């Protein structure tokens, strides 16, 4: 009882009150039933190109190799070349006729699940600022990541796993773990970084060579000392909850290996995700996606996946060698993502699991040098699936050359507001007093994009 209480919002609110902080009361959606109970965030580190993935621009063919005809903003490297058409073909998919490029043949088979936003914008052209911005709503380190806010706002449904888990494929985003941090929120809400292999969590079990019998004696002795201490402290609440969390830690030592053990998964499932794929990065991301589903099943509130390393490419950040880099990055994530969507759908979980696919910005429709693209925060594509969004739909548009959002431009704050809305949370009410302000994930911005939502 104490555990479920202490890990949820109630406990946070209570702890904050007990400390004398002011805390807004969270109006959980104003009585509305939330569409989504959890989020799986597929973080495409480095900035995939919109015009090569989900935003086809036939006009680029005409200008290919010619000077870019629109006025250009300053770019990160200022090595702007000529217009560069997409090396990939686009086709329409599903009943919705959604356009997807050849980079995502598997995801294309889920076209009718996708809600594509082609008019996302960011305020920053630099990876790190843009990473912080996408994750925390501010361009510098120090604010809580969206997973921390979600855990803070909704609490944790799992009794033996943390509420915000990052499945680290190998690439910690530029900006470091502060991108995934709890900022000024209590540490309960910080991301637990799990590797998809091995035992997953740091310090989960004793170092190699430790004697289990000795560890059991240690634990028992510590528990005896704790019992004495609790009595002497007059049953102090802080002592009691420390003991409870210590017990939770011990339970995690069982729960995490059980999570990581895929023995119970069918061969068909494993193959579908790509666990036996010829390409190693695909195998890694496949494992991440499958673990994401297993975490979702266990009630973890916010699950974020970072990309695996693909040899010779710097994430999705193709300043040069666009063809190789984007092909290998999409190869790593395409099949596992499609399998995840289908698996969640088959298990009846997609409706209450919001899946989000996004990078920190897009890329320029003109070349950097001859075969790369520079950063472009002025208009790029993200997509969502499940969790109450309208499948098979496209929202907003960039200009004819895919450079800047011109129709229904939206910003990261709007994405955050809509994600929280789908989780049943009013983004203006999810606040924490810090530095003299009621801080929000959406700062003073954010508009819920109702047209992204499925009719309910």
């Amino acid at each position, binding site marked *: 009882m104490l555990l479920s209480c202490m890990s949820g919002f109630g406990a946070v609110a209570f702890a904050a009150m007990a400390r004398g*902080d002011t805390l807004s009361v969270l109006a959980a959606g104003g009585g509305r039933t939330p569409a989504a109970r959890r989020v799986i965030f597929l973080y495409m580190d480095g900035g995939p190109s919109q015009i090569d993935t989900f935003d086809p621009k036939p006009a680029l063919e005409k200008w290919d190799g010619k000077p870019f005809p629109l006025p250009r903003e300053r770019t990160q490297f200022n090595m702007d070349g000529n217009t560069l058409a997409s090396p990939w073909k686009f086709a329409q998919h599903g009943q919705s006729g959604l356009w997807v490029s050849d980079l995502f043949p598997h995801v294309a088979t889920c076209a009718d699940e996708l809600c594509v936003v082609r008019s996302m914008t960011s305020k920053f*052209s630099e990876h790190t600022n843009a990473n912080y911005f996408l994750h925390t709503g501010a361009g510098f380190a120090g604010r809580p990541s969206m997973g921390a806010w979600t855990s803070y706002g909704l609490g944790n449904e799992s009794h033996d796993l*943390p509420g915000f888990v990052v499945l680290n494929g190998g690439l910690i985003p530029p*900006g*470091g773990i502060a991108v995934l941090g709890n900022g000024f929120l209590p540490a309960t809400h910080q991301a637990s970084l799990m590797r998809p292999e091995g035992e997953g969590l*740091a310090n989960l079990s004793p170092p190699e060579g430790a004697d289990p019998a000795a560890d059991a004696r240690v634990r028992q*002795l510590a528990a005896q000392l704790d019992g004495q201490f609790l009595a002497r402290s007059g049953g102090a609440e802080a002592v009691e909850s420390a003991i409870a969390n210590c017990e939770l830690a011990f339970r*995690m030592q069982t729960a995490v290996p059980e999570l990581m053990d895929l023995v119970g998964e069918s061969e068909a499932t494993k193959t579908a995700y790509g666990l036996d794929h010829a390409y190693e990065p695909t195998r890694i991301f496949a494992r991440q996606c499958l673990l994401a589903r297993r975490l979702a099943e266990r009630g973890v509130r916010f699950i974020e996946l970072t990309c695996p390393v693909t040899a010779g490419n710097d994430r999705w950040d193709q300043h040069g060698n666009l063809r190789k880099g984007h092909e290998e990055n999409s190869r790593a994530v395409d099949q596992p993502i499609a399998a995840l969507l289908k698996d969640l759908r088959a298990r009846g979980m997609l409706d209450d699991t919001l899946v989000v696919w996004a990078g920190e910005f897009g890329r320029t429709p003109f070349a950097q040098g001859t075969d790369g693209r520079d950063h472009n925060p002025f208009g790029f594509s993200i997509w969502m699936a499940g969790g109450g969004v309208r499948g098979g739909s496209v929202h907003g548009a960039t200009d004819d050359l895919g450079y800047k959002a011109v129709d229904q431009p939206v910003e990261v704050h709007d994405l955050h507001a809509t994600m929280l809305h789908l989780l049943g949370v009013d983004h203006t009410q999810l606040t924490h007093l810090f530095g003299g302000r009621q801080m929000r994930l959406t700062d003073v911005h954010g508009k819920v994009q109702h047209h992204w939502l499925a009719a309910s």
Partner: protein
Amino acid sequence: MPVFVAALAIQTGEPLDFSRDVRPILARHCLVCHGPDSSGRKSDLRLDDPHSALALRDDGPAIVAGRPELSQLIARVGSPDPDERMPPDDRPAVSAAELAILTRWIDEGAKYGNHWSWEPIAAPAVPPIADGNWCRKQLDAFVLAALEKRGIAPAEEADRATLLRRLSFDLIGLPPSADEVAAFAADTRPEAYEEAVERLLASEHFGERWGRHWLDLVRYAETYGHEFDYSIDHAWRYRDYVIRAFNTDVPYDRLVQEHVAGDLLSAPRIDPATGLDESPLATGFWCLTQGTHGPVDVRQDELDRIDNQIDVFSRAFLGTTMACARCHDHKFDPIPSSDYYALVGTLRSSRRHMTYLDPGGQLELRRAEILEQRRQLEAQLSLDRPAELAAPSAGDAAIEEFAQAIPAGWSTTGQAFARSASELSQIGRAADGVLLKSPSGVASSESVAPAMQGTLRSADFRIDCERIVIRACGTGCRVQATIDGYSLHQQNPVLFEHVFASCESPDTWTDLNLDVSRYQGEQAYLEFIDDGPGWIMIDSVRRETGATSAASATGPARTPLVELSPGVATDLASRLDQVVEPASIGAPLRAQGLLEGTASDEPVLNRGNHRTPGVTTPRAAIASVPVGDLPTTGSGRLALAMNITSSASPLLARVMANRIWQHLIGVGLAATSDDLGSMGTPPGNPALLERLAAEFQSDWSVKNLVRQIVLSSTYRMSSRVSDPRAEEIDPLNEIPHRGRLRRLDAECIRDAILVDAGTLDPAVGGPPVAIHLTDSMQGRGRPANSGPLDGDRRRSIYLEVRRNFPAQLLAVFDQPIPTTTVGRRNESNVPAQYLALANDPFVRAQAAAWGAALAGDPARPSERVGRMIRSALSRDGNLNERSAMMAVLNGRNADPAAWQELALALFNAKEFVLLP
């Protein structure tokens, strides 16, 4: 929470206080639309200003003093009609208790007052109390009076073992040793406690503990974070400065003056041990910002960094949230945007700089000797100034020429550069040993000695050209343009190679080209850096646009002294070599710091956007917060330093006294210790805070205030909950009525493990220990090599603070990632902490070290067990505990593994990390 505070006032029947009881309610519910920010104000009504609130309006005054039933405020807030009711639905609703307070306040006459923390410090008289025996210190009377008024008694005193442990962690951040515990238990004299206090106050570890608290305020870090986590070179010099300052109990007003403007204070503060002037080191705190890798909008990036500087400055020193006034006037406190941009002006008029420090003035002394000896040598030559080498005029395009060696507005630091034309040498040495005539009309670091280090800087200028071309000669030196204060060029050669250049042309003039075409209209300055062993001469600085002009820069800079006979020349050359012998010249200490730049005022930026500037505001002149009124000179930092520390400013003392209380009692008298503004929590025992602030302001001694508090009866109360009625009346323990059970800070936990294991290296100060890297610490900027697992067994304050690679064990126990001021850490309780204590390789290794030491200890096992408990828990174990440990030992008396089990169990005991 305001409601509880008001409840305390209601309990005692005192009249409500606007600033403490009412303003927080208005701030929370009303002031966004009816407060100080004119831009968002609705219905032209301002509820925090009596002139507006009491004015007659169409539907009657918002407030009628003494008549709540006629006041629209009460009618609208209490209205059952959702269209009428205030605040609107999208704002947090006013609770019934809050409405009752508003009503009572109007009933009592709607008396306004300044915000409590901005009022002068009152120094209240010691209140009368019934039970004089309980009080040891004056502050106790303030606590007891508040308790007696509510009919509750203070908690009993904690037992002596608990007190010693509490005292030791609070003062030096380390547990008492087993021997100290035993000695203290045996010494029952009443003075024993006082003596322990004095011993700990005098300990050199005091500065480490209290310095670490301070480092949280200034977001101390040794890297810039962001994409590549570049190092902030020499940052640790500032950390050691802080430790020394707390150890020597530098008066707090002086400490803050040094932070704001230590480079500008007229009187140095010399460290007797090293002869170093400490003051300029403090300005390093301004430089501990994050640093963007390759900002596309350099101006915006500068403003973001300055925003962080203002946030830290205003919250750390003044408990005021000035950064809230960046985009608009402050919503809750009467701080206009112009105050924010007054600080922006000050900071844009200052420059970051790698300071050259000269302990004991040794380098200056040596420099004077060299110049004098060179003059004597030159006197023998009776050379004329070599007019034929004077530079061709660069004409209109010149930014500067160097007739007087240092042009107006330029400045130099360090010892390398000639400071006036009269310091320019006439002779120098070529690489092949030939004696040369030096030109005049240049800026030069050739004139003292190649080994001397220094930097020459230009005044600020606005970029209105494509290139800056510098005619120079020299070797081993570089020039860089700093644009909008951006200074990570060296770490970022890919993105910034065009704005810095190396000078490698010792024989002939050369043109150094800086391409600034990207930065039209931006503010910039040039730096010529000679960090030894080279030298540089600068003849002219020109601006160029369009086609590159013909190289102006050919020909020798220095000519052989042909008129000398070979014998004389050789003799002179060797004597000159002796004069400038590198081995005789020490290196300066380098540290992060601030310097005066070119003074200028900044415009208020509409919505914080630099593309929409508004009216210009005078730098450094803060109009809202109460401060002194010294006029601005230069950047304004000196006036700012003096004004915020003047007796006219009540905030400095109040904020720090509250912080000191927080560190010793567990929570500040005002709980939000970084914000004593109207969004902060007002003090639960305001008279006590006033008293402490007044005492602190009288001598500015941190140690004295710490001493007062730890000697008090209040500090010594037990944390045990014993009186349910007291919990009901004072639920947040604000008065306080008992002690507060706390979790140890991250650093205390790690340090205590080292103390118990007997492995701690207690050395104070020095360069940081490289961070230990684990597999889960990945990402850009990851250091090539891991530091040692045991951190060289140094105290945690000496572990390298890498923003993107924080020490895992410390992070899990809430050491903040340093981004901005954190005066009060989270005190979380999460499973990962127990996984770390159980399984972290560091903890295990230290348990093994302790186990090995115990296994070889000749004392009886039961004695060893007793000492373990004394060491880990600072008390004698009881029979149950000792026999439980003996049972685990189970006769394995010489087995290190067995003792390791006991050690690990003690590290995992909750009592190890919780301080009752």
